[in-house]
């Protein structure tokens, strides 16, 4: 079940070149910052084994992805099922969606050059929250930008799918969650056109996405443990979304269960530039330096820096 080409020895030392190449595994990003920090990017070595990223159109060699935006949503987000409502209708607007979003992605592609293109995005829309694998596939067919889908469920301070809550709390719930992660990674993503779990597509997820709301709540902890299990089993990288805290606990948990930190991305919200919100994602190659990272950037990243007691106080208010 595990992808042998993606296996990594946890104990081996890592060179900068190895680091960058391996973080691109399964679409975790062929490039970091595209040009400003490009001297830190190694030149491709012709004789090196090239690994693949799992896009919605199939595996793509990571050295053919180009600059990869690590956390986007395209084309849709729809929270209806979290509120036990029917999802928004797609017929009648689907064509417009595909046309418009393909243009937006092609605009991104057009900013890149031969060295930084064609470009890719990691599509982080949660399962049953507007994640339509077939729609993503059709979008990918209309743009030069590669699309890497993810599997995701979290509490994230919102109401949640009843099936997900029941699954998490069920006997052997963590394992069952992990099995679902693994199925989406190795066989194909769940098809939202029908009741949950009725059928699956043949489009594979290339990333595991999980999240925290404030601190790492019990239900979120279960999902994190399942994600770690699935990552260890498949080699698929994990990306997280820290809404208003929990990053340090995530790091501690991943270390505890021996998930590979070289394949884990902690997402930190909070940089505003020109009126737009930019998400800074920090790959923690060594979780132990997370504290020093937080200290070095001060209080500008409350989503990862906030201490649990602060979150508790907020919950208790």
């Amino acid at each position: 079940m595990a992808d042998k080409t993606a296996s990594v020895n946890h104990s081996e030392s890592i060179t900068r070149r190895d680091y960058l190449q391996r973080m691109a595994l399964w679409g975790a990003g062929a490039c970091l910052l595209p040009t400003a920090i490009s001297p830190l990017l190694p030149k491709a070595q012709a004789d090196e084994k090239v690994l693949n990223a799992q896009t919605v159109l199939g595996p793509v060699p990571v050295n053919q992805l180009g600059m990869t935006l690590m956390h986007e949503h395209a084309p849709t987000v729809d929270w209806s099922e979290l509120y036990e409502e029917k999802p928004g209708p797609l017929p009648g607007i689907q064509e417009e969606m595909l046309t418009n979003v393909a243009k937006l992605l092609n605009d991104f592609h057009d900013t890149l050059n031969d060295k930084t293109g064609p470009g890719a995005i990691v599509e982080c829309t949660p399962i049953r929250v507007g994640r339509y694998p077939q729609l993503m596939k059709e979008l990918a067919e209309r743009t030069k930008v590669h699309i890497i889908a993810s599997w995701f469920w979290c509490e994230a301070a919102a109401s949640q799918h009843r099936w997900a809550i029941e699954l998490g709390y069920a006997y052997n719930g963590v394992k069952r969650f992990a099995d679902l992660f693994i199925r989406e990674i190795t066989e194909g993503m769940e098809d939202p056109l029908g009741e949950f779990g009725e059928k699956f597509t043949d489009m594979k997820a290339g990333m595991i996405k999980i999240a925290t709301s404030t601190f790492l709540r019990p239900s979120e902890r279960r999902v994190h443990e399942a994600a770690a299990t699935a990552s260890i089993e498949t080699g698929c990288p994990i990306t997280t979304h820290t809404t208003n805290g929990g990053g340090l606990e995530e790091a501690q948990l991943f270390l505890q269960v021996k998930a590979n930190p070289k394949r884990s991305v902690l997402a930190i919200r909070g940089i505003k530039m020109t009126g737009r919100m930019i998400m800074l994602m920090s790959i923690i190659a060594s979780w132990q330096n997370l504290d020093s990272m937080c200290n070095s950037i001060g209080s500008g990243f409350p989503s990862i820096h906030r201490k649990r007691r602060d979150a508790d106080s907020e919950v208790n208010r």
Partner: protein
Amino acid sequence: MQIRKLIDSGHTNQILVSHDAVPYVYTDYATSKNEIEGWSYDPVDFTVCSTILIDELKKAGCER
């Protein structure tokens, strides 16, 4: 600039960026309306990281 602080602290190769942008959101998610009009389109800019951010980093003294 926060990214510059991370770079100065030796974390350059631990930084990834993105927009967390969403072009289409179904805004009537908490109602039973279920109409096409519930879809909201925002022509988000997926190019900020590859253009504006690069310029800002250069201004902040990040050299190639």
